[in-house]
């Protein structure tokens, strides 16, 4: 570790990402003094951590590790209540808090009485997060918490973390070697190179748009351009509302493609002027919530080349034609 300096802003997720050997886990462990820094200072809310007794410090910082690190001899509820017990809460209160967190991380309360090995990897990891949150610490350290589970479970755990964070606003320092995870989760991403030197610290959008050097560019990998689009909003996308027709009507229109919509306003399929008897597949994105990447993806899924904008309830709000997408893309790229 050499001359690493960064700030993790309160209430935000700061991701440390880099190849193995870049010292990201070491940096994380310096924060809760599992490793003591030989030089330099680490301040928590302005207070140097070196001055705080390690067990006391650690009880005030949630910690989640890769294999969850649950205690095999303790039931799930007692695993979650670990820190409250250490802080001397009474058993009843600690367990009640644990049950509350069990539900909060999306687990069935019936799991409370099980032992860790009776849970799947994804469930164990959720318990790990619940345990870290049990005493409501303002700061959460997460060391590759989702890298030992399969990709589908990982995605759902990431979504869950973002949902939790939107409710809790913890200050999170998250370590990963997976740049996609860093970009998905981070409010700010610190890319480290071997030896613990900071290559770039930026929000994900800036990182993708303006990598500081070749190392960062290479680390970000291919399709950086496409991935940038996930930070471009679909809010300003111009939509056409004259391309939808109700189911059953066969009104003549000069347009080559028309979107057939059912009685509830949900899309049914695209009708081409060439073969009006058959409906072709469509792709949708939620306007405002989904990114331009999703909108473009939806367009590529349909032979019409257009993507269907829907609201949160799935009702059609308009159609983004290739022209509209084109214009939005060039605005995104050229500012």
């Amino acid at each position, binding site marked *: 570790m050499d001359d690493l300096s960064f700030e993790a802003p309160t209430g935000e997720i700061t991701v440390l990402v880099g190849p193995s050997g870049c010292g990201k886990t070491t940096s994380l462990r310096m924060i*809760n003094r*599992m490793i003591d820094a030989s030089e330099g200072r680490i301040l928590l809310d302005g207070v140097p951590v070196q001055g705080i007794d*390690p*067990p*006391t*410090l*650690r*009880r*005030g910082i949630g*910690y989640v*590790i*890769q*294999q*969850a*690190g*649950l*205690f*095999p*001899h*303790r039931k799930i509820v007692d695993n979650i209540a*670990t*820190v409250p017990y*250490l802080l001397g809460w009474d058993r009843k209160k600690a367990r009640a808090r644990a049950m509350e967190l069990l539900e909060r991380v999306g687990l069935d309360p019936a799991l409370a009485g099980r*032992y860790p*090995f*009776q849970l799947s990897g994804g469930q164990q990891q959720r318990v*790990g997060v619940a*345990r*870290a949150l049990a005493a409501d610490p303002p700061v959460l*350290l997460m060391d590759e918490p989702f890298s030992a589970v399969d990709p589908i479970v990982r995605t759902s755990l990431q979504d869950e973390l973002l949902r939790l964070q939107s409710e809790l606003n913890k200050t999170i320092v998250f370590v990963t070697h997976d740049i996609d995870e860093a970009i998905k989760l981070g409010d700010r991403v610190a890319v480290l190179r071997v030896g613990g030197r900071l290559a770039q610290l930026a929000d994900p959008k800036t990182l993708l748009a303006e990598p500081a050097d070749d190392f960062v560019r290479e680390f970000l990998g291919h399709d950086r351009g496409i991935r940038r689009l996930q930070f471009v909003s679909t809010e300003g996308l111009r939509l056409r509302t004259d391309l939808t027709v109700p189911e059953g009507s066969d009104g003549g229109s000069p347009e080559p493609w028309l979107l057939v919509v059912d009685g509830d306003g949900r899309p049914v399929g695209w009708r081409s002027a060439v073969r009006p008897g058959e409906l072709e597949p469509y792709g949708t994105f939620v306007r405002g919530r989904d990114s331009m990447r999703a909108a473009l993806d939806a367009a590529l899924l349909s032979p019409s080349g257009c993507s269907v904008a829907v609201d949160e309830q799935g009702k059609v709000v308009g159609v983004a034609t290739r022209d509209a997408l084109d214009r939005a893309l060039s605005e995104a790229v050229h500012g």
Partner: protein
Amino acid sequence: MGDGPPSLWEWFGRNWDTGRADSIRTLLTDHVTMSFVPVVLALVVALPLGLACARWRWLYQPTSGLMNIVYALPSLPVFMLMISVTGLSQTTVIVPLAFYGVAVLIPAVVDGLDSVPDHVRQSAVAVGFTPLRRLLQVELPIAAPVVLAGLRVVAVSSISLVSVGALIGQGGLGGLFTRAYQNPFMPPVIVGIVLIVALALVADGLLVLAQRLLTPWVRARKEAAS
């Protein structure tokens, strides 16, 4: 009396409680004491030594080497050597047996602590256990099944080894064997063997029960695996 040697049951009934020092009942009580005390002593000594060996690895090789030598010493000459220190008392048998127990239990404690997964130990540190609480509430409970398995071996071998002490007059039920040797007569031998085996089974059963009560997660895991 008078028509031939007594049957096994007759002999047992007559000798169960004569009030003398060689009644079967007294021998049984002595046997329990001389095998139970060494097991407890061994555990009390082996726990801190095992912890020290696990903590300072360099201690483990010399300690286990020494303990293996102790374990290799035949019990009879050791008992005889002990006479010069402790006389013809139960202690003469108890101390060597405790040493044998320590020899078995130190590796059990070390292996038990080694069975604590690294990520579990790490997370115990990370959530803020102090070293002592981590040992008592995380590491020792997880080590318990391995330590208890060692304890079962020690308990059963102690119960069996006590009888050798009969050769110096302190062998509990072993006394029944020396008596039969002096005067060829089978019932005492059979009663002795049956009682010693029964004692071993009871001790082992109690330890298995303790294991189930103390480490319920182990049984649940086995059931899940099958």
